[in-house]
């Protein structure tokens, strides 16, 4: 409830979100030959030199660190696309542009480990940071708008942004619900009375109605 004392209630840490983002598929170009890899999440087929393959991001990172492949940046990470998205964000203050769910985490991982595989990396990096700033700011301004609602729906929000606002929004909505709902307030009065509550304060059935003992 809104009265909780521990502010560190956050279901996921950013590292965990990044961990979940690593399941996304990316395209790599291996420079060696390897037999198929059989994992629980799937089989990733035999690797031939210079033949592109789709693998999860964590596998791509592992191979890249060992120098066995190069990573192709995903489609949405081209400069034209990012510029287009950024302009769309700036124009439309009410809605969000459709971006990949994990764009922040994927872009950060690629910048850290696959620096030489991305053309015009500085441009791309600054564009993504601008997009992120604009979206966060939009989220905050939208938060001011809702009041006395029980549920909020925002389309096209990415995973990291959701995680940042999650504890705050959850508690705020709980507080609004608690204060707005007349049933909740009269509920806290009667303990064992399960019949529909009336507005007058009731004495619970098991409270002894005896007078205080005489001394």
């Amino acid at each position, binding site marked *: 409830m809104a009265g909780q004392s521990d*502010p560190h209630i956050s279901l996921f840490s950013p590292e965990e979100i990044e961990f979940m983002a690593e399941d996304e598929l990316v395209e790599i170009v291996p420079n060696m030959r390897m037999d198929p890899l059989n994992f629980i999440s799937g089989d990733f087929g035999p690797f031939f030199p210079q033949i592109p393959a789709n693998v999860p991001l964590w596998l791509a990172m592992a191979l890249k660190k060992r120098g066995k492949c190069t990573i192709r940046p995903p489609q949405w990470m081209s400069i034209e696309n990012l510029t287009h998205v950024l302009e769309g964000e700036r124009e439309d203050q009410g809605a969000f542009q459709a971006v990949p769910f994990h764009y922040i985490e994927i872009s950060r991982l690629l910048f850290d480990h696959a620096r030489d595989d991305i053309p015009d990396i500085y441009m791309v990096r600054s564009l993504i940071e601008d997009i992120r700033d604009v979206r966060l700011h939009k989220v905050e301004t939208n938060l001011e708008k809702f009041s006395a609602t029980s549920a909020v729906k925002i389309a096209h929000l990415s995973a990291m942004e959701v995680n940042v606002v999650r504890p705050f929004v959850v508690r705020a909505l709980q507080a609004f619900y608690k204060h707005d709902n007349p049933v909740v307030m009269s509920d806290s009065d009667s303990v064992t009375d399960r019949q529909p509550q009336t507005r007058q304060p009731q004495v619970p059935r098991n409270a*002894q109605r005896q007078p205080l003992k005489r001394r």
Partner: protein
Amino acid sequence: MMERHSIQERYFDPQFDRFALPDLDDLFDDDHQEKEEKEEVSNELVPMRALKWRKGRAPKMQNRVTIEKGNERQFLSKLSSPRTAASGRRHTSERTAIDRSTPRNSAGKETESTNDGAGASRNAKYYDIDDILTEEESGNGVKVDPSAEKDCVEEGAKVELPFWLAQELYLRQAVSISIPACFNQKTRREIQADAACVDLRSRCPYFYEFGCKIAPLVGDRTIGKMLLSTFQMRYKDILTKAHTTAYASASKSMAVLTKEETSLHGAAQSSMAAFKKWRIGGPRFQRASVLGRKRKPTE
């Protein structure tokens, strides 16, 4: 007879068992002295009242209830809410200090298991520290019902009691509760003027919770609406800065927030800080704290 009662209380867990209000009338009863000598007593000298709930507890909350009787004052000292005793007992069995996260986590878990209608709504927060502290608010003035008879307090006297006691007495129809000071007209006018700047923390740090609890007892329908509108206005003005303000200005504005608003603010701050820290990157592994300490040379 008293033994049975005390044993019953020891094994009674209000989270699971059927909730029975502890017998407050024993508070005002003086026939316990020979029984108390048999059981183990704490080292302090305690007055005869309210001994039942003080055996072997973890930090006791000291409370003084002042009752005026004409010119004399009589102190019912060292009254502690049964919940503090219960939570103290629970905590001494589990850990040495009252950990803030424990009552909430266990209360949260037990809410799922005892999720049956209206009964759970009170039991689930029984061990919640914030709930206990909310009920400790002694902001209310209590009037004694003329039909009651009680030795120490005259009828019609005005007494200040903590909320948990006032509620129990109200249910036994011994007192009637008047609106506490934090909800009076002066505060309301200030809130209407500018909700964001009203210093709610100095009045009552548990403003919203307290209002929710006291509204059914006082019979004031307008409290709910006032709470809601207050929260709306303050929320908009103050809390949306939570994600982005620098540290200095945040501490100034935080001085006026109630406990609930502070927790909202803290939640947003911590998640934002975690995100920024992650964004910077750096080594993923943290050095274990035991390795960091230098070993002192032994003589």
